[in-house]
């Protein structure tokens, strides 16, 4: 099978001809695979996909997102998750099964303006996404600095096995909560650390497609090699989640060339052609 690695494509480009399975952001037409997004084309044993470099967030089941409560009805909250649909968080999910709209004051638990980390439990073409916060590490976010990046940059910001985000967190003494929808919440010991983390994140966002990005970030943060290589258990919610996920993944030695996220890909067993 013909291997494609790191080929840059724009919509309409023919990636490959032949009987391959289209995976992500590609269409199959008359036995050719065509890209539908600007991005990096890759082939694996499952098929062909394009890792997009631009785009708004489209919700997906099991994504962990950070959302803002906009409103509540008598039975659910409406949550802005930075996507083309607003999500719903059912009141029963928060109060438990014996929730009664007459007894329980929803505004006391989550008021409009509050930020929550939540997992998308259902979403399809016909209905708006539904959220849950009934899991470890999900729920209301009490404090922190709010930051929005493009959701296509999230995998890069996390890095292979959380390498990038750990580098930033350790060097700046901050905790970074990451939602798959591109919303971040930063907390840290001091303002300088947060400001520096801000800068690093912006660098990742702007130069996501370039190689050797971890090194650039390290240069910005003045980190020496040894510090970053020591494993610590200092990782954020989504970060842990990421590491858990990536354990099922093949170990690719070259993290610099990994543009894909293991959270976002449908197939956890992807093959890195590099």
């Amino acid at each position, binding site marked *: 099978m013909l291997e494609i690695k*790191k*080929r*840059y494509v*724009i*919509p*309409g*480009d*023919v990636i490959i001809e032949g009987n391959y399975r289209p995976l992500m*952001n590609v*269409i199959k*037409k008359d036995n050719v695979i*065509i890209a*539908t*997004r*600007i991005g990096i084309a890759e082939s694996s044993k499952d098929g062909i996909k394009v890792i*997009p*470099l*631009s*785009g*708004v967030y*489209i919700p997906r089941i099991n994504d962990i997102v950070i959302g803002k409560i906009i409103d509540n009805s008598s039975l659910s909250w409406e949550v802005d998750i930075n996507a*083309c*649909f*607003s999500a719903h968080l059912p009141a029963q999910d928060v109060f438990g099964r014996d929730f009664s709209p007459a007894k329980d004051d929803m505004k006391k638990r989550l008021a409009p303006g509050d930020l929550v980390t939540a997992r998308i439990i259902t979403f399809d*073409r*016909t209905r708006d996404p539904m959220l849950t916060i009934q899991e470890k590490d999900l729920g209301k976010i009490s404090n922190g600095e709010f930051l929005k990046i493009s959701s*296509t940059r999230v995998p890069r910001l996390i890095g292979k096995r959380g390498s990038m985000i750990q580098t930033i967190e350790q060097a700046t003494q901050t905790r970074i909560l990451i939602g798959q929808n591109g919303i971040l919440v930063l907390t840290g010991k001091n303002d300088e650390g947060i400001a520096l983390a801000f800068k690093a994140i912006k660098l990742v966002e702007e130069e996501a*497609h*370039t*190689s050797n990005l971890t090194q650039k970030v390290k240069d910005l943060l003045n980190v020496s090699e040894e510090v970053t290589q020591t494993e610590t258990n200092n990782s954020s919610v989504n970060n842990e989640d990421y590491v858990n996920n990536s354990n099922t993944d093949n170990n690719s030695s070259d993290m610099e060339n990994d543009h894909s996220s293991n959270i976002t890909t449908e197939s956890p067993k992807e093959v890195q052609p590099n």
Partner: protein
Amino acid sequence: MDQTILIDENGKRTDGRSIDDLRDVKITIGVLKNADGSASIEFGKNKIIVAVYGPREVHPKHMALPDRCVLRCRYHMSPFSTDTRKNPAPSRREVEISKVMREALEPAIMLEDYPRAAIDVFVEVLQADGGSRCAGIAAASVALADAGVNMRDLVAACAAGKVNDKIVLDINDIEDKEGSADMPVAYLPNLEQITLLQLDGILTESQFNECVEKAIHGCKMVYEIQRKALIEKYFGNDLPEGEEKELEENKEN
């Protein structure tokens, strides 16, 4: 009849081009920070900015379609875009161009991927010089790609027309007004499909065919510029060795 000389004895047109020349085209991507995708195009003396928002929630909600996305286009000429002030209220012509632009872009966009959502395309003409609908479509398709909307192909657009009984490429403002025919064409270069074809003027069958062919040829030239702009913006100088060659090969195919 006292007519301006549109093509002189050397075969040069009013702006010094030959009949097969395109005006200078320059596309810049990501010019607006607020928009999800944006592009500006300079097509000769045309200057156009395009902003794309979406896919996003549809307002008013009753416009939403259950099975696909709604595409909304707005073509607008700013009051200062022409030498006499243009009334900023949408004119009959602008409403029409908004509609044909939408129809030119729709086949390229995979609308069925975003049910119940909307994509908004705003095309603002800052300076007009004939052929602004083509320039607008070309810029809009690049802005859509910049916004990360799923697309089957880019849409390239270019006009051709008849001037002094000769079929010429890329009609400018004077040729549009004084010439005898103007034919804007939008084209999907990889799928080889025409998504817009209008004709203002009278052509014989053979002239018509020649005109379409010439316009498609122009579209392909515009496509190369669109492609280059996108690749430069997204991949910049990061083209690894061999990649440029690969791109060249793609072009040829």
